[in-house]
Each structure stands twice: as C-alpha cells, then as structure tokens.
C-alpha cells in the first residue's frame, strides 16, 4: 500500500512526522480525504482533529486552525498549535469546555461569544483526540 508523508509543524516544533496511508482533515470549505498522489493543494483548516490512517489504524491529532499544503507524496500542516493525544491535558480541556459553554449560555458581548466559540471548538477537538 502506498504511503504519503504527513508533517505537522508549529512555530515551536515539529509535532508529527510519519508515513501514513491517508489523511482526513476539515478544511474551511469542507472535509477532505487525502490519498497519495493527490494534486497539489493549499487550504486553510478549521479547528478540528486531523485523522491519519496508518496500517489500518487511525491516529488523531488536535490541530487548531492553520493550513495544509498537499503535494504528490507529502502533506504539510502548518498550525499555530497542534497536539498529539498523549500530550493533551484532559482535565484542563474539560474545564475549558465547560467555561466556554457557560460563556456562550450567558450571551456576553459579540467579541466574547466569538472567543468562546473558538475556545469551545479547541476544547472539543482536544477531547476527541484524547479519546474522551
């Protein structure tokens, strides 16, 4: 089975670098599945888990925004923050989720709602990746 190289890079370090069979991401225009030999593509991403299929197993990485560059045999995801399942602080993520939900329920100012929505997306994505 052919593979492509998936790299996830943040400003601080390289979070992930593996040969995988398929990458599934949520782009701003919708969900995308990337197989080897995909045409070159650039798209911004939503805050959502990225799924990497490798030897029949699924791996999830929490990627918070950023964008993806696809080449024939290589996918590079550049994000301001990205975490693997084992690096995620589940308790903190759960607290953040509750906090964000509370803020959304309170209906604060326009800006706060936008912020809370993003925080909620991040927390949910983290929890999904951590397998909660």
């Amino acid at each position: 089975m052919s593979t492509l190289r998936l790299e996830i890079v943040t400003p601080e370090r390289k979070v992930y670098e593996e040969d995988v069979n398929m990458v599934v991401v949520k782009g701003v225009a919708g969900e995308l599945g990337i197989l080897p030999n995909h045409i070159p593509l650039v798209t911004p991403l939503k805050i959502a888990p990225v799924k990497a299929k490798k030897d029949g197993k699924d791996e999830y990485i929490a990627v918070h925004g950023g964008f993806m560059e696809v080449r024939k045999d290589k996918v590079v995801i550049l994000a301001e923050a990205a975490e693997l399942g084992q690096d995620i602080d589940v308790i903190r993520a759960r607290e953040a989720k509750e906090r964000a939900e509370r803020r959304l329920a309170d209906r604060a100012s326009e800006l706060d709602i936008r912020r809370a929505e993003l925080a909620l997306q991040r927390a949910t994505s983290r929890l999904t990746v951590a397998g909660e």
Partner: protein
Amino acid sequence: MAKGIREIKRSIKSKQSMKQITRAMEMVSAAKLKRAQNAAVASRPYADKLREVVFSIASASGSVKHPMLQSREVKRTAYLVITSDRGLAGGLNTNLLRRLLNEIRARHTSPDQYAVFVIGRKGRDFLNRRNIPIAKEITGMSDSPTFADVKPIAAAAVQGFENGTYDELVLAYNEFRNAITQIPTLQKLLPLDAGDIGGAGQGAKADYEYEPSAEEVLQVLLPKYAETLVYSAMLDNKASEHGARMTAMGNATKNATKMISQLTLTYNRARQAAITQEIAEIVGGANAL
C-alpha cells in the same frame, strides 16, 4: 595600618562574592543561550514553509492583490520594539532603543505620526521616561517564549496595518550573530515586499489548487506570515539577550579577577609593611634597653 589591612581584606571578599555571582550568571546565560538557539532553529521549518507557500501563491497568481502586499502613502508608522525584561546585558537594549529613538526623531515631527508597540520591561520604561506613547505592551516574557505569548501583540500590530490605522510596520530587535555580536536592527515588516516575494518564488514549485480560492488562502496566510516573522524576531532577540548577558558577565568576571589579584597584592604589601614595622619597633625597643 591594621585598619587599612582589614578594609582591603573586606573589599577582596566582596569582590570575590560578586565574582561568584557574575560567573554563575555567565553560566546560566550560556545554558539559556543554547536553549534559545535551539528554539530559533526549531521555529525555522514553520517560517520557511510558510514563506515558501506565500511566495508560490504570490508568484503563481501574479494578479492576486492583497492590501498587505501594497505600499501606500505613509501617514502613520507603527514600531514594534522587542527588548528584554532584565538588564545586565551590556549595551543590548540601550543600543537598540537609541537607534529607534533616532529613527523616530528623524522621521516624525509629531507624536500622532507614529505608534509604538513594545515587548519587554526595558523598552517600556525607556519609552515611558521619554513620554513616547505606547499603543500596547507585553512584559514578563518567559525565557522560551511560545507563539501564543507573542501572538496578541503581533496580531494587534498586523491588524492595525490591515484596517489602515498604520501604513507601515517596522520591527525593531537585536539580530543575533553570535554570542559577542548582536546587531540592533530596524526592519520594515509591512507592507511585505512584493518584489522580494515575486523574485523568490523561483524553481519548479508545484502549481497548487487553492481551496476555496487563492485570494482567500492569501487572506489567511499573510497575517500569519507577518506574525511568524515577529515570533522569529522575538526568538532572535532572546538569543541576543542571553548572548549579550553571557559576554557582559564574562567580562565582569574577568574584571573581578583582575581587581582581586591587584587588591591581594596591595594587601600582602600592607601586611608585610606592618610586620616590618613591628620588627623594627621590637628591635628599636631591645636596643633601647
């Protein structure tokens, strides 16, 4: 005489403890410098990749227009100054801030022609003392700054450019050459140099598809790119800070050693003189009998 000797001795002791401190600081800075350099290296793939993609979009679709690529008449300039929180780093901050001050004085006649964003306590205090208004400040940056630490101020400055508050964004920081040399640098960050971008998009770069469109991708990427440049500058400045402090403390240690050896010499001379005098007194006393 005996008092003089005691004073010298005390002075030697105080210099010795100072030397201990400066030597410790030198070693700490050396370790931190190593870490800061590693961080700068680790951040490079992200910045390089981002540049590559931005350039390939800008060069492939030459018609793409974006406000961040276009220079307009400069009415207001924003300066983003990166300094350290702590001193004891030689002339690091002073040189940079003086350079900035000269630039501001030379280019602007009134305070509403510019705005200053500042990172670091040293810069903030310096500008406050000179009554230069500060648009936004961040202090207490950790020794290994994360992107999230820098993001708020970088985003504020970039946004100010995007919505037309400022027509130009200049970044002021210390470029790291090596532990002895740091160069105070003023770099025009925005508008991004379109010629530079177009020229660098050479090579057989893949022709990308853009989703949803090239313009929209650029819309997302360019602010990110600018923020990344700020982050790199921050890391560079951190490395400079530790390098400068290491050198400064190394010099201080050397000076302390020199002073101690000189004082020890004086001390021994004084001691010898006292002994000689005592003997002379005893001999004189014995002779008198």
